[in-house]
């Protein structure tokens, strides 16, 4: 091993990168674009659900019930239909996602103490939004129901000091069994808190595998790899010289996103910066290894691009960066244990959102390290065979 020879290769590699102008957008604009798109747009929370109502009763009570929907921010009552058909048509045309159908005698029956059915038409096409919307409908209705009971009991009953008396004093505040929700780690439930760490993982994966694979394949394609091989530079030195610029770029990208996250998105890392860089380093073993592996199986740069596309798509979709792993089928969940991105995503989220340390994350870091070593050595031995 000669440091001078390695340095020479690094210099050559950096010069080549500097000349290749189209790589800059990949290196710097892609992270920003992904941050913006995912941080702002990828949000399942449902507010302002377009809602239509059909109020056949049209009494004080039915209006109160509908007001409960109008005032909580989840439903926008956009249309007031006059017939069931009209309501159905609104749903068909997609103008509303939820239709509330209040029957005649709503008030009369409730005052009598009978039970009343409110039909809620839901556009189930988007299953996720429909579930969330139905939950809200149910919550509002339960609350309305409880308040009704309160009103239906005559005031005399409340003078007493027993159960009803106490409850009467409490009801204004909350339900009998009150749901005291506490959201940890991300109390405002903002999606940028969730996606910024995810984008760090994705960018590190995309940039370093892409650069490694494409630069190796390019040399192969042009035939310069043989030229370098006949020089006194040893294969190990070539590899080290070729890979270290990518490692540096990977770390620069991480720092770049960290800064962008702080300045543009107000997202700060709670845990230790050292652990972040340590695990990023371990993760780089895997990504560089994957890059080397792709370079050994593809003959042209275009082939390599397509392999990379499949790899990146797979990893980002399945490793919990965007979609939670717990919802996936068991088989897929097992597969994700083999993918280093899974561990890295857990670590980065743990550091960013939870601020946890090595005591909690040690096993994830260990698995990440293990994945890196295995992938790297396997790819390396495959490459050696190819070159020899």
């Amino acid at each position, binding site marked *: 091993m000669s440091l001078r020879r390695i340095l020479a290769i690094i210099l050559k590699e950096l010069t080549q990168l500097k000349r290749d102008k189209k790589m800059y957008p990949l290196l710097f*604009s*892609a992270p920003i674009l992904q941050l913006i798109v995912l941080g702002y*747009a990828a949000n399942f929370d*449902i507010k*302002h659900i377009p809602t239509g109502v059909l109020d056949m009763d049209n009494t004080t009570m039915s209006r109160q019930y509908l007001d409960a929907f109008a005032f909580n921010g989840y439903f926008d009552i956009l249309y007031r239909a006059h017939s069931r058909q009209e309501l159905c048509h609104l749903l068909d045309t997609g103008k509303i996602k939820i239709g509330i159908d209040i029957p005649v005698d709503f008030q009369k029956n*409730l005052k*009598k*103490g*009978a*039970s*009343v*059915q*409110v039909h809620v*038409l*839901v*556009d*189930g*096409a988007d*299953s*996720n939004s429909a579930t969330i919307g*139905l*939950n*809200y*409908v*149910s*919550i509002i*209705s*339960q*609350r*309305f*129901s*409880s308040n*009704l*009971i309160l009103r239906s*009991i005559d005031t005399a009953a409340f003078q007493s000091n027993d*159960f*009803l008396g106490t409850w009467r004093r*409490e009801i204004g505040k*909350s*339900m*009998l*069994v009150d749901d005291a*929700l*506490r*959201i*940890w780690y*991300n109390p405002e*439930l903002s*999606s940028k*808190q969730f996606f910024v760490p995810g984008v760090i993982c994705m960018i590190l994966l995309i940039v370093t595998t892409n650069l490694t694979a494409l630069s190796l394949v390019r040399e192969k394609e042009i035939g310069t790899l043989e030229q370098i091989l006949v020089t006194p530079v040893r294969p190990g030195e070539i590899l080290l010289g070729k890979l270290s610029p990518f490692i540096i770029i990977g770390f620069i990208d991480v720092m770049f996103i960290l800064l962008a996250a702080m300045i543009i998105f107000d997202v700060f890392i709670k845990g230790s910066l050292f652990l972040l860089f340590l695990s990023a380093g371990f993760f780089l073993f895997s990504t560089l290894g994957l890059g080397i592996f792709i370079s050994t199986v593809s003959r042209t740069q275009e*082939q390599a*691009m*397509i392999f990379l*596309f499949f790899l990146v*798509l797979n990893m980002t979709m399945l490793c919990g960066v965007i979609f*939670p792993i*717990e*919802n996936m*089928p068991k088989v897929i969940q097992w597969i994700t244990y083999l993918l280093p991105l899974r561990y890295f995503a857990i670590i980065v989220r*743990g550091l960013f959102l939870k601020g946890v340390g090595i005591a909690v994350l040690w096993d994830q870091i260990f698995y990440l390290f293990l994945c890196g070593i295995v992938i790297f050595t396997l790819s390396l031995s495959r490459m050696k065979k190819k070159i020899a």
Partner: protein
Amino acid sequence: MFRRIYVVVVKEITQIVRDPIALLLMFILPAFLLFIFGFAINLDIRTIPLAVLDHDKTENSRVLVDRFITSGYFKLKQRLSSEDQINWLLDRGEVKAIIKIPANFQREVFKGKSTPVQIIIDGTDNNTATVVMGYARMIMQQHSKDVLFELLRTSRGAILAGIPTLDVRPNIWYNPELRSINFMVPGLIGIIMMVVGVVNMSVSIVREKERGTIEAIMVSPLRPFELMLGKIIPYILIAFIDLNLIILLGKFVFHVPFRGSFLLFLFLSFLFLASALSMGLFISSIAKTCQVAWLISFLATILPSIILSGFIFPISNMPKIIQFISYFLPVRYFIVILRGIILKGVGLSVLYPQALVLVGFAAVLLASCSLRFKKRLA
């Protein structure tokens, strides 16, 4: 003229058939995407891992916990005995929610005092947390109401003639079992049309540019217009094969219904394809190498189409600026059409606004594209 176009078509198809990568992109990728979005990614949040810390240990507290478990949304992972475990479990991510029932819960509730039950939710993944929150609140309110009824019935039954109740009868249309695959498959058709139309189209032309074969074609008696048509037609064929492939796979493997008119579906897909192909042609006139063509088509068309089009994330929640951008994505309208035809079974009488927008897009994109092409080739 038709003969010359035909010759280009044959050449193009021969080239595609000989190129294993092109075949991979055109036929394996759609099936692969269908598998990932249909099988692996499930938006329906069920079996949320839950831990319970029950300081009360009475009938009432057990009923409450049972409600969570039998709701089908939560799965009890662990019963805790002390507060110290909460931190560890959430930090490790082993559970997503913890219910903490205070001591004297039952006694206070039966006295009529509003009693808080703490539910701690892991907010890391804001989307999951939103859903978990909704479920938890729904279950708690249900419990609260039922306890109240029970108390009223036993203590003051005489006072009330009857207890008024409000039943919500959900009537879920189009996708009654609320399966997310039904939501994904129509959208996926839009995404795959995008991939075939934009990526494959642009790369196929740029490859000729890169290798210098486009000059060879240009000195032949072929007119630019004929070259363009000859290049486009094979991709239209492939796109339609993919279309049917997804519909068939969706129907027979994933049991996604097809409720509307197939003819209308084909016709509107053709309209959309015209826009996608024009975008592909446009990119091919900018990019000099396949790599750049790939990169542009991925960053400028595929990524926004997946994230911003309403394919997965509802557009109505996005910030106004991003909503504004989404109006310029043809795939946004196409996905509405696809869901309309496939899931709702509605026809042109409902979908005409979206169809008209697609016509507009196709016209503008095709026109600007052929203008640019004429200039470049001249």
